[in-house]
């Protein structure tokens, strides 16, 4: 939210300035404004806060632009003459524009100007100040965000501006936001009790954490305390209900991550019976492929960045899949019928892959960015859903069903089932079992690579990435019942949701311990997992 906030400003700046002229008729003290801006680079943050406050009160039409530049870190002081400039990105570097005269001063060398520093508190102030100055913006989005930043400040000084804006507002959503902002501000004034009660009602209707935060300080107010307390308890009640939904959502999301990590293993381990200790490292390879793709895009074609994951996904399948096939052809092939020795050999492979990545990419975390469509969050009622988690859930389900389709419907799936169920018979029928083994292993590995693409969005991309998922993956596959994709599905979501419902009242550590104990006990009850084949088939 806050990130996007800055963006829509500039296009509407001109209109904004005009609007300001209307709102603030006292715009005559321009001499003060210039002096104040010159004073900005000097003194402590506290001094700067006073200057900002004063600037926002000058009503000068240039104030919004200067303050905005300060907020975005583009307001600099020239080192040679101390002139205050606004830096604007242009082709071949930054261009300086005089903050007061608007004169274009041409390109600037890096290091010839010094940024005027802000801190959290100043940025908060700036946002409120800019918000108050842009409540009448012709752009709906700008007004909405302005109303929200004024809401966050709760400063009674803005009431006048809010009233003016409310009177002129025609959009319902913006009007609500303005009314809410006004309600917060009213609570801090000496307004009549009736008006305050109305404000409480407005906030109670809003009903979210921000409303709670605004109301909480007034819970012991002698005049409206009762209403506030009642509103607060109502909001809390509603939020408790929402919290359950929220936890289920978290569980689904954790489940999707677990499933992605485990689904490849459900094939190599569950279907083929190969204890592949290098599975985690194949996931890691997928994540590093994503990193490499993004790195290439950053260098060559930054405009492609939003597509980086879509480009990385097939490449990750290719990279992890071919490493998987190489492992199968080079090592695992010689060890069929000796499952425990595959454990030893693939453990060796995992050590080598880890160290190889460490040598090539360095031991540190590498940065994998979120494309814009995976950043931020949206709200459903009082529940926050982050885009990245939602996409990962969708992605996980897509991978799962695609895989199911491949195994059930494709010719390759048919051959694969034939080989795993009756190898000699399959060979008799002319199936190249070696090729099918390699492809099956490659498929499992490729899916691990896909998981890596998704995990790179929410976790560290480091050589340790694989190790942190391998144990959980085995738990999921075994809990669900090896050899059954639906088992992995149910295992992942079952464990994910249970874990997340436990976490709020046990804490993360104890929650995880309880999960493990639960798995141990569950296996006693169903020694072959949740989706075990029963009856005679199980003995085969």
């Amino acid at each position, binding site marked *: 939210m806050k990130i996007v906030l800055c963006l829509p400003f500039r296009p509407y700046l001109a209109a904004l300035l005009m609007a300001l002229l209307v709102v603030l008729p006292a715009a005559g003290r321009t001499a003060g404004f210039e002096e104040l801006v010159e004073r900005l680079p000097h003194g402590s943050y506290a001094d700067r806060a006073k200057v900002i406050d004063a600037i926002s009160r000058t009503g000068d039409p240039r104030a919004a632009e200067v303050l905005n530049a300060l907020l975005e870190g583009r307001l600099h002081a020239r080192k040679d003459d101390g002139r205050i400039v606004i830096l604007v990105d242009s082709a071949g570097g930054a261009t300086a524009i005089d903050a007061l005269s608007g004169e274009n001063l041409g390109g600037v060398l890096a290091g010839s100007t010094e940024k005027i520093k802000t801190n959290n508190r100043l940025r908060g102030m700036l946002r409120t100040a800019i918000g108050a100055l842009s409540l009448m913006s012709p752009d709906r989005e700008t007004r909405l965000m302005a109303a929200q930043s004024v809401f966050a400040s709760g400063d009674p000084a803005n009431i006048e501006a809010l009233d003016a804006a409310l009177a002129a507002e025609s959009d319902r959503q913006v009007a609500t936001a303005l009314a809410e902002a006004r309600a917060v501000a009213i609570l801090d004034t000496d307004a009549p009790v009736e008006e305050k009660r109305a404000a409480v009602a407005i906030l109670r209707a809003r009903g979210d954490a921000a409303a709670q935060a605004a109301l909480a300080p007034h819970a012991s107010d002698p005049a409206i305390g009762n209403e506030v307390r009642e509103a607060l308890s109502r909001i809390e009640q509603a939020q408790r209900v929402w919290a359950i939904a929220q936890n289920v959502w978290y569980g689904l999301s954790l489940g999707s991550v677990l499933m992605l990590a485990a689904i490849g293993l459900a094939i190599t381990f569950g279907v083929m019976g190969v204890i592949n200790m290098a599975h985690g490292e194949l996931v890691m390879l997928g994540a590093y492929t994503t990193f490499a793709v993004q790195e290439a895009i950053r260098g060559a074609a930054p405009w492609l960045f939003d597509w980086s994951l879509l480009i990385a996904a097939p490449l990750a399948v290719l990279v992890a899949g071919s490493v998987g096939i190489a492992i199968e052809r080079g090592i695992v092939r*010689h060890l069929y019928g000796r499952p425990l020795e595959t454990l030893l050999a693939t453990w060796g492979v995992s*050590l080598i892959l880890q160290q190889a990545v460490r040598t090539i990419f360095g031991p540190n975390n590498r940065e994998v960015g979120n494309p814009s469509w995976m950043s931020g969050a949206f709200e459903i009622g009082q529940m926050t859903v982050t885009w990245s988690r939602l996409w990962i859930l969708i992605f996980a389900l897509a991978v799962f069903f695609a895989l199911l389709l491949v195994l059930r419907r494709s010719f390759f799936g048919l051959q694969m089932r034939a080989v795993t169920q009756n190898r000699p018979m399959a060979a008799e029928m002319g199936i190249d079992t070696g090729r099918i083994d390699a492809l099956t292993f490659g498929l499992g590995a490729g899916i691990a690579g896909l998981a890596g693409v998704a995990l790179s969005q929410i976790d560290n991309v480091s050589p340790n990435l694989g190790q942190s998922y391998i144990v959980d993956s085995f738990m999921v596959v075994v809990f669900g019942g090896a050899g059954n994709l639906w088992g992995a599905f149910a295992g992942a979501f079952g464990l994910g949701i249970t874990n997340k419902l436990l976490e709020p009242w046990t804490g993360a550590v104890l929650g995880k311990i309880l999960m493990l104990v639960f798995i*141990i006990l569950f296996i006693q009850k169903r020694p072959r997992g949740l989706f075990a084949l029963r009856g005679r088939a199980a003995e085969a």
Partner: protein
Amino acid sequence: MARLIDRRMGVFLAGLFILTVALPMASSAAAGQLVPAYLVSLVGKYLCYALLAVALDLVWGFCGILSLGHGAFFALGGYAMGMYLMRQIGPRGVYGDPVLPDFMVFLNWQELPWFWLGFDRFWFAALMVMAAPGLLAFVFGWFAFRSRVSGVYLSIITQAMTYALMLAFFRNEMGFGGNNGLTDFKDILGLDLTAASTRTGLFVASAVALAGGLMIARWITASRLGRVLVAIRDAEERTRFLGYRVEHYKLFVFTVSAAMAGVAGALYVPQVGIINPGEFSPANSIEIVIWVALGGRGTLIGAALGAFLVTLAKTVLTGWLPELWLFALGGLFIMVTLWLPGGVLGAIETGLTRLRAFASMRTKEIET
């Protein structure tokens, strides 16, 4: 008794004996420190690992129970010993508290938790070294074997067990020192832990424990009960239809093995000077499996040898090739599985047999 010590075992025990006598002598000041003194503790540590590997081989090699959680029993034994060593510090901690260990003092614990009581006595600690892992193995095994959990399912829940214990011991509320574990030990049975004589004593104790562990394992596996274990490993269903209560046998051998692992842990801790929850990590337990597989599963001696070789390789390679040693170790694991299916011991014996056959052929050639 003769059946207990076959040729293989004899050679190994003799080698172990020579090592036990020669190493402390060679490192003593009297011998002009032919080898550095730290080798005593280092090799002592290897011996503990070897005992741990023997314990795992007893259940995996002879009864087919692939435990991916044996590190937990080792660590529990280590913690029991560590708690004794902590209590031995007494009022010599930095805060001077007569009872509470330092980590409890600065985290404001008011009194010693109940499960720390009794650990100021050596006999109690020594008992717990075997009883704590043994009891865990008994309870865990009682549930798991009765429910006929087997194969990978058993392996994975043993892994879940050690993972859960690791997380639990990381928690500072547990009262085991959290991530830092137990450390800063001063003496054992009144003897200074840093003294060369104490070190030698611990080293000899480890060697004796290893020999004892080997003998016990050998005694069990060579007995008529050992045949039942092998039968369970090769054909569990068959054994059950012969009228054997498979779960009792599994439980017995699992518990014995856990207690043995506990002893290994207890001897390990005073020699390395620290015990912390990292010992519970699933990766550590997998490493134990790897020692056994590399040395030769189901041979006992091979397991000990495997532990010795892998940890020695780790010591040497981390100093010699600090940046590349994982490649070397990983490659070693792959090559052993591909080319030495019987493990190192198997390879040595095949080599010897071929050598002998070759030699006798040569003799014949010469004769004719």
